[in-house]
């Protein structure tokens, strides 16, 4: 069953622009130059119940704007959204009870009080009885490996402990749809792993649908089979992570070990030479020419060992996010 359905949504903002300097500031006071920014451009996708989908793209690609539209915080300029059978912008209580939005860089816990104070408020807001709230807090804190931290003021907690407490607060009402915006931002590797483990467990236990944005490719590769790649507001890829690798890299990586050295020139016609070190050679061969090239290699070269693999997805998407654009 479809949990999230998005049809041709777009979002444009009007922003004012100002050049630096006092003269420009004076001008800006009286005359504002405005510009329309198309943050999201005709996105279309569906997410099934229980799916964990990675939502990736470079900074400013439109990920957070899309998440804000999906949870009903902002109105789309055009198009339609259906989340758990609701139109998000109406923000009916029945809808708000089903969703949560966790933003890695923002917090909902009261800074100067222990997380338990905020949890008590959340329990009352979501209409949980004291007994039910206590049971859920125990259950989630066990899954998140939280203990006495819940009794300490939030400001005294480490970033990892704070993030786990934020997750607990955001999931106390047991939402079936989770929008996670950089949930592991700034966490050390151990905390990242713990948060990922928790999300997998929560997804399995409650059948929750998760849409996750992250710049840490570890989050995407370990949690999501399917990814949505967005670039300049447009959907570039919607499918399996493996398919994305093929799309981003029309090459395969071939590692060769020779029994005796062969001159470098003889490999040029087979593909791009990434590494040439006596008997060890690494080639990038276009997928369309892979069979022919391998046949040539095996028939004409003294091969001791040969390995064919895809370039690592982390590296491919990492490069993509770093460059901020997609070049095919």
């Amino acid at each position, binding site marked *: 069953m479809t949990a999230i359905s998005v049809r041709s949504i777009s979002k444009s903002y009007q922003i004012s622009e100002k050049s630096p300097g006092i003269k420009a500031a004076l001008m800006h006071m009286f005359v504002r130059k405005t510009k329309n920014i198309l943050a999201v451009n005709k996105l279309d996708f569906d997410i099934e119940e229980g799916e964990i989908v990675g939502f990736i793209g470079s900074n400013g690609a439109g990920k957070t704007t899309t998440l804000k539209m999906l949870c009903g*915080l902002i109105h789309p300029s055009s198009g339609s959204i259906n989340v758990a059978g609701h139109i998000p912008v109406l*923000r009916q209580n029945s809808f*708000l009870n089903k969703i949560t939005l966790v933003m890695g860089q923002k917090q*909902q816990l009261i800074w100067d*009080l222990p997380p338990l104070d905020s949890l008590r408020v959340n329990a*009352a807001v979501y209409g949980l009885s004291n007994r039910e709230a206590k049971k859920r807090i125990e259950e989630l804190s066990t899954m998140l490996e939280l203990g006495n931290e819940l009794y300490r003021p939030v400001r005294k907690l480490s970033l990892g402990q704070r993030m786990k407490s934020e997750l607990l607060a955001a999931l106390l009402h047991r939402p079936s749809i989770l929008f996670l915006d950089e949930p592991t931002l700034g966490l050390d590797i151990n905390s990242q792993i713990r948060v990922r483990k928790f999300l997998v467990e929560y997804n399995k236990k409650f059948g929750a649908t998760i849409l996750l944005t992250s710049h840490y490719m570890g989050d995407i590769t370990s949690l999501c089979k399917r990814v949505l790649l967005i670039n300049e507001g447009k959907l570039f890829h919607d499918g399996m992570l493996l398919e994305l690798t093929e799309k981003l890299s029309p090459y395969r990586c071939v590692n060769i070990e020779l029994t005796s050295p062969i001159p470098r020139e003889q490999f040029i016609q087979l593909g791009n030479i990434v590494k040439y070190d006596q008997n060890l050679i690494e080639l990038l061969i276009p997928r369309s020419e892979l069979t022919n090239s391998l046949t040539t290699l095996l028939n004409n070269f003294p091969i001791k060992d040969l390995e064919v693999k895809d370039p690592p997805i982390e590296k491919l998407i990492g490069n993509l996010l770093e460059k901020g654009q997609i070049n095919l």
Partner: protein
Amino acid sequence: MSRINLMSKNIKRFLRISFALFSSQYSLMIEYRAEIALWAISGMLPLIMLGIWRESGISLALSLNKDWLTRYFISAFIVRQFTAVWVMVSFEEDNLEGRLSPYLLQPIMPFWRYFFSHIAEQFSRIPIVLIMLLLVFISMPGAFWFPDFGHLMISIFAIFSAFCVRFLLHWLFSMICFWTDRASALERLLLIPYLFLSGLVAPLEAFPDSIKTFALFTPFPYILSFPSRLLAGQEINIIKNFLILFLWGLVLILLGHYFWKLGLKRYSGMGA
């Protein structure tokens, strides 16, 4: 489920949320008790005005009795303490820093968070106000009075109603954040009519007739002068003043609701 059962369930839920919001905000305020004391002291303007009015000859020229003035300004001090509102500043901060977004995603109007934060702050300043009153009465023993129970209760109700109307007025102006991102400058602007038309710096009796008539068409005298005179035990038309206060409350609720709905359509989720 019958309508009565549903209503009773909703009331119970609201009371539970109110208590949870109040207790968490009260705990938070207690963390900052020194700051609360400073805020309470900063609300001393009516006591300063009392000193000025008692020692000046204007009160005699206006046939205003010194005891009458003393009670009025001490009452105004109490009313001011419990009708302090800073929702425009908080709302602006939350809007700019992205804290409004998680509030909007919970099944309760963010209005109540700000409202109970104010109520909690007022509770936390009770001991400080009592100490300040004690000092005032020690320095002016003749000024001491204590209203009878019925009078006290109705005065407390008037102060609470005045606070609600002032809160609703500021809440309405907070909505400007949806259009301009900032609203705190408007709070300063709102302070001017509040200071001069509410009876804070001078009782309405001291105003020229035209200004007094104008002031009575604004909500400000009902926010301060009315509850102060009621608490001071001075002659005032209680029913008429309560009715006008409630009418203002109703108008502000309707306007606040309208601009909230309109503003949300413009909300950009800034900083979040």
